[in-house]
């Protein structure tokens, strides 16, 4: 099952990944990290993630640290 791993402490809340995901699986979450930023969260109940890594390539802060395809 394709999925991504987010390091929330690296997220600065630019939300570029939210627009980039072709399946719209990334959302602005409720939790706040030590920068005071509402970080991005990955919700994929329907197992739609393609593992395309567009989000990780777009992220300027390598907050999406791992992407798996399968």
């Amino acid at each position, binding site marked *: *099952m*394709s999925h991504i791993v987010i390091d929330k*402490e*690296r997220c*600065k*809340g*630019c*939300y*570029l990944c939210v*627009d*980039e995901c072709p399946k719209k699986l990334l959302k602005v979450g409720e939790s706040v990290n030590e920068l005071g*930023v509402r970080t991005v969260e990955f919700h994929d109940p329907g197992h739609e993630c393609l*593992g395309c*890594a*567009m989000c*990780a*390539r*777009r*992220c*300027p*802060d*390598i907050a*999406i*640290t*791992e*992407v*798996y*395809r*399968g």
Partner: protein
Amino acid sequence: MAELTQVFKVPESIKKGSKFSFCPGCDHGVAVRLVAEVLDELGIRDNSILVASIGCSVTLYDFLEVDSLEAPHGRALAEATGIKRARPDKVVFTYQGDGDFASIGMAESLHCALRGENVTAICINNTTYGMTGGQLGPTTLLGQVTTTSPTGRNIDYYGYPVKIAEHIALCDGTAYSARVSLDSVPNIKKAKAAIKKAFENQLNGVGFSFVEILSTCPTNWKKTPQQAHARVREEMMPVYKLGVYKDITENN
């Protein structure tokens, strides 16, 4: 269940535990990651020397796991020349902003290209001086409002912006000069290919290789990261056209 393959990871050339000091949504982070990925893929991390510059990338040695030297403002390519001539076995590269490369460092940059030094130069073009608060820089577009051009850049007072990749391509010593952008994921892939080419040229002893990267400065442009990418496409790209301006390896 299908087997999982990892298609993305943090490059090994990024220092463990380091966090970029750039503003939210700034494309600098993407450019640094691309350089790190290229160093990984070519297996040259242990043999590379970075010459860091002045600007937002001033603390680049905190993010990249390579030997580094900090250069005085604009003098990165002068320093890189010295390092490469003393240690020709090393891969020497600079990472500079447009203000560092094409304003205070224009003489060093152009003469390094004219001498055809076998080094790699990466230049981030965000049309402003980002670190110091968004002043008018050498690449500021005509009409662009900055803190030192509050009514917009006009030709009478400030003159024209410099097209760096074209100028470097005009130098006879240049082996490779390209302009790429980071506004979209396909363009990020093309940018990585250009950076890789610039490093491969040095490994092959081809000569001076240069990549200009169109980047964003959401903070000083007073735009969201998304709006900043739209500006790159709509305002910067018509003036700073993407492409390879010189490649002497093309016909061989």
